[in-house]
C-alpha cells in the first residue's frame, strides 16, 4: 500500500546548524490513525509544522499522496486539514461563518456542507451556538469550532495537535467517535496527544519522539515491547501509558524532556 503521508529522513528546526528534528522517518497509510507521542519539547509540534509546510526541512522531505508541497502547493494543501493546539479563530466571525470560510477555501459544495454542518453541530452539541461570535465562545467551544472546520472539509489527512485540550468528557467522546468514523471512511489522522490512556485504543500505530528522534514506533504492543527493553520492571499487560511513565522514570526524565536535577 502506498502511504498517504511519508516523512522521510526529516531533519529540521528553527535555525540551520541546530536542528530540532534528526532523521525522522514515519508514514501514515490511508484509513490509519497514528499517534505522535512524546514529552514536552520532543519535537511533535515541529514535526507537524514541517508536514504543514510552515517550516522548511534542512534535510529529507515530506510527501503527501506522492508529491511535496513545492511541487503542487494547492493539491498538497487541499489534502490536509489542521487543528492547532490552541484555537485560532477570527473575533469578527461567527462559528457558522468560520465553517463557511473553510468550506469555501476547500471548494466544498453548499448542499453537502449544510448536511455535514448539521451533523457535526449535533455531534458536538454546538447547534445553538452556530451563530455566536467566536469571541463569545468558551475555550471548549472554540476547540470544537476548530474541529468542526476541519471535519467539514473532509480532506484525506487530518493533523490534530492535542485534540482533547479544553474539551469536556462529552466532547472527547464525540470527537473519538467521529475520528473513528472518518477512519472507517478512509481518512487518515495524525494526532499528537499527552493523554495516552485516551488514544491508546483508537490509534493504529504510534510514533514516540524523544529529543527530536524517533525512539520507538509501531502498534501499541510493539511500542510496549520496545519500551520494556528500557524499563524492565513493567509488564506487557500494563497499559501503554504505564509503560510510557515507567520508561520516563527509568530514564530519569522530567516533563520538559530533560534530566531531573536530582539525577
Amino acid at each position: 500500500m502506498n502511504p498517504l503521508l511519508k516523512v522521510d529522513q526529516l531533519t529540521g528546526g528553527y535555525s540551520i546548524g541546530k536542528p530540532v528534528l534528526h532523521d525522522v522517518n514515519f508514514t501514515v497509510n490511508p484509513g490509519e490513525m497514528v499517534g505522535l507521542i512524546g514529552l514536552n519539547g520532543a519535537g511533535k509540534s515541529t514535526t507537524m509544522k514541517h508536514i504543514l509546510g510552515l517550516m522548511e526541512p534542512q534535510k529529507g522531505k515530506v510527501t503527501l499522496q506522492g508529491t511535496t508541497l513545492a511541487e503542487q502547493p494547492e493539491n498538497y494543501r487541499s489534502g490536509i486539514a489542521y487543528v492547532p493546539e490552541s484555537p485560532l479563530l477570527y473575533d469578527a466571525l461567527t462559528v457558522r461563518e468560520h465553517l463557511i470560510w473553510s468550506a469555501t477555501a476547500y471548494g466544498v459544495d453548499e448542499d453537502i456542507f449544510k448536511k455535514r454542518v448539521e451533523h457535526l453541530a449535533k455531534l458536538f452539541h454546538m447547534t445553538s451556538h452556530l451563530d455566536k461570535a467566536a469571541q463569545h465562545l468558551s475555550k471548549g467551544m472554540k476547540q470544537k469550532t476548530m474541529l468542526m472546520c476541519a471535519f467539514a472539509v473532509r480532506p484525506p489527512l487530518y493533523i490534530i495537535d492535542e485534540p482533547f485540550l479544553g474539551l469536556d468528557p462529552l466532547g472527547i467522546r464525540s470527537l473519538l467517535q467521529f475520528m473513528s468514523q472518518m477512519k472507517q471512511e478512509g481518512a487518515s489522522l495524525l494526532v499528537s496527544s499527552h493523554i495516552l490512556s485516551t488514544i491508546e485504543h483508537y490509534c493504529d500505530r504510534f510514533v514516540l519522539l524523544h529529543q527530536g528522534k524517533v525512539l520507538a514506533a509501531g502498534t501499541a504492543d510493539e511500542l510496549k515491547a520496545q519500551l520494556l527493553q528500557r524499563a524492565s520492571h513493567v509488564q506487557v499487560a500494563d497499559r501503554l501509558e504505564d509503560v510510557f511513565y515507567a520508561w520516563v522514570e527509568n530514564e530519569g526524565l522530567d516533563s520538559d524532556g530533560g534530566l531531573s536535577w536530582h539525577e
Partner: protein
Amino acid sequence: MARVKANRQSSPQSNIKPLLKPEHLWANRVSAFWGEIVPYLRYVVQSGLGMVLVFGIVAGIALYASFIEHIPPLFPVRELAWVLISPLVAYMTIRTFLVPADLVFLLRQEHKLGAYIRKSLRYSLFPRMLLLIMGWVILWPLYHRADPEPKSFLVMLFVLIMLKLVALHGSWVERHISDVRWRFILRAVRYVWAWGVTACWLWLDIAMAGIVTGAAGILYIICARRIPALRFPWEAHMEAERVHVNRVYTFLGGFVDLPTMNERRFARPWLDWLGNRFAFRRDQAYGYLLTKTFLRSELLGIILRLVAIGLLLLWWTRHTMWNGFILLLFLTAIHAQCNALYQMHRHDVWRLLYPLEKDARTKAVLQLSTEIQVIVTLLLLIPIWTGMTSFGYRLSVSILSALFIIFFRLQNKAKHRKQDDDED
C-alpha cells in the same frame, strides 16, 4: 559602570519594585507604552504625513484668516461652533494601562491603587481638555465676529472646561457600570447631554444657559450614580485598553508592517448579506473573509464618519468650486484608511495552510478597497451634482475622482504584489 547599571535594571528586585508602588507602576506603564510606540513614529513622519499636516495647517490658517475678513452675511456660526465644539466636549476616554496579568498580580493591591487611578484620570483628561481649549481658541475669532450676540471668551472657556469635567465624571461612572446595556445608554446620554448643553451656551443667554446646564448636569450626575456599578472595573479597564492599543496599532499599521491585533467587533447583522454573496465561491474565499471582517470592524465606522463629514462640507460648498478640492481630499483620506485593509488577515496561519492561490488575499483586498472607494465617490458626488456649478466642472470633478481611484488601485497593486513576493 554601564554594565552594573544594566544588571541592576534587570534584577528581579528592580522589576518587582514598580508593582509595589502605584506611582512607580504608573510611570513604568506610561514609559513602556510610549517606548513601544515611539520607534514606529519615524515611519509616520517618513511617510510624508508630517509634511501634509504642516502644509494643511499653514494653508488652513491662511484660508481661515482670509475668510474671517470676508465673512458672508448670515453665516451659520452657531451651527458650525455647535458641530465643532460638541464632540470635543463629549469625547472622553480613560486610559489606565492595566494589562490582563494585573488581574492576578494587582488584585490584592486594589485598595492601594487610588494614586494610580488619579494619575490615570489626569493623564486622560489633559490632552482632551487641551484639544477642547484649542478648538475654542481657534474658533473664537470667527465666533466673535460672526455671532450677533457673542459671549465673552473667558466665560465660554470656563464653561467649556466645566462641561468637560462633567463629561470626565460621566465617562468614569460609565466605566464602572457592569451591565453592558446600561453602560451603552449612559454613554448615549453623555453625548446627547454634551450636544444639548453646548447648544444652550451658544443660543441662550448666560443666565438661562447656566440654569438649564446646571440642572441638566446635576440630573445627569444623579442618574449616572444610581445605576449599579462595580467598585473597581478591572475587565472594563482592560477592554478599554485593548481597544485603544488596537486603534493605535491600526493607525501605525498604515505606515509600517505590524501584525494585526484582535479588532473590536461590531455585529451589524443587517450588513451580513454583503459578505454572504461570496460564500461557497472558492475564487472569492478571501472576499468572504475580508468583507465580513471589514463590515464588523471599527474601520467601517471611521469611513462612514468621514463620508458623513464630507457630505456635510460638500453640501455647504455645493455651489462653489471648492467642492472639487474637498471631494479629492476626502477620497485621499478614505484611500489612506483603506490601507488598513491590507493588514487584515495578513499574518494569519490559515493564509499559509488553506488551499488558495498565494495572491488570493491581495486580490480580494484590492477588489474590496476599490469597491469602497467607488461607493464613497458616488455618494460624495451627489451634493456636487445638485449644486449650481457648470456641467463641465462637475464632469471634470467626476472624471478626476475616477482617475484618483484608478491611480490608488495601480499604486497598491504594485506595492502589495511586491510585498507578497518578498514574503515568499
